[in-house]
């Protein structure tokens, strides 16, 4: 796989997660407006713990991964769109 193909694959995963967040949390923004490295909780997009639970369920359904509880509850994995993409990629590879 070339560098361009790898980076395009990553971009697709980022866009998938952005779209999933906007649709499931009914955010009043376009998917592209969720900056990949902006904090999702606290400052940034100001999501809360209920949103986090919904996100995890939505991610499991969308990507067909089982996010083990110990990892899901690790706050660093849910800090940004990019950290969520890292988690999904890692879990997908583990499942394979």
């Amino acid at each position, binding site marked *: 796989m070339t560098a*361009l193909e790898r980076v395009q694959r990553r971009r697709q995963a980022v866009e998938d997660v952005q779209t999933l967040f906007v649709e499931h949390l009914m955010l009043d923004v376009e998917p592209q*407006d969720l900056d*990949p490295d902006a904090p999702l909780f606290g*400052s940034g997009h100001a999501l809360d713990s209920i949103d986090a639970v919904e996100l995890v369920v939505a991610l499991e359904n969308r990507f067909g991964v089982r996010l083990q509880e110990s*990892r899901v*509850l690790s*706050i660093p994995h849910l800090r*940004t769109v990019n950290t969520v993409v*890292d988690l999904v990629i890692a879990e997908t590879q583990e499942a394979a």
Partner: protein
Amino acid sequence: MKPTADLTTQLRALRNEVTLSWHDGLSLLRFDANRGIETLEPLIATDLGIRESQFRQALRLDDQGRPLADLLIGFFRGTLHVFGTGLEHAAMAEALSAQDAVQAHDDHVVISIDGPFAWELLGAWDTPSAIGLPYLGAYSPREGVLAVRAGRTGEYGYMLVVPRAQAEGIWNELLAASPMPVTVVGKETLERASLENWVFEIDREGRSGLDALELQLTWRLDLHKDAVGLDAIRAHRDAGLRRRITALRSGKPLASGARVLCEGQEIGQVLAAAETAVLSVLDTPWAEAGMTYTVDGEPVHSQSAPFVVNRSLFVNPQRHSWAGRDEVELPEGLQWQNTTSS
């Protein structure tokens, strides 16, 4: 009020215990609440629907959509408070049309308490209930003093805005009240911590010529409102981004301005770096995490921000204390990390 320990010691205290710092560099302005909103609404690119005793991170953009001032804006007891960086105070007042505002700049200073056990020091100095203050919430621990929970380090952080005449006394009270060692930290340490956590610094990446979209600050913008700089932002958004700020991890220190290459092709440059943590601006489509590029012939790895796992994420003020700090554990598979040492 100046740090005595070296940078590594200061940073270690910030990441593990509690620190104090003294700020003279913030612009402090106070508006009558209604008049302040009327004045600031067309100038600030952020939604100003802020509730009493709450603050919000905001931006004053220039007409090209680049950050002109980095602001913390909030309401407290009928007053609109603005804490700003990025401009000298007179220029800040002008940029915010604040000629009629109360200039709190000369007679107040800001004392910051930062670290995973910052809440414990605040509670010991004031009242234990202070530990329940929500993020970006505000209260007054005593007459004339405003406390805001707002840090720039990724750890628990509180800003105490205090009258200059009381500042030294309060500083000494904090030192005396602390149940743990307190390390005084300086600007260099706070800037390092903000880079490790990728907290926006207007005098660092904010002066790189990038606009708010390229800086990944869309979350601070209200794209539905009409304010200075937002027309340029909307036009840029419609046209598509051509570059974006991106985190890199390097095995060695890098210089600002160093070229980032992918398979021999220049794709961007280093904006700022500290030890292994690097902020770069990369062209799209290359501005993504999970890639390996080169700088000065050495590999660098693009990654998700932030660069550190903050201890504060796992410290619960209801259960933990500095005395029992060894009980604070990371979930399986994670390690405490730092761009220097932890």
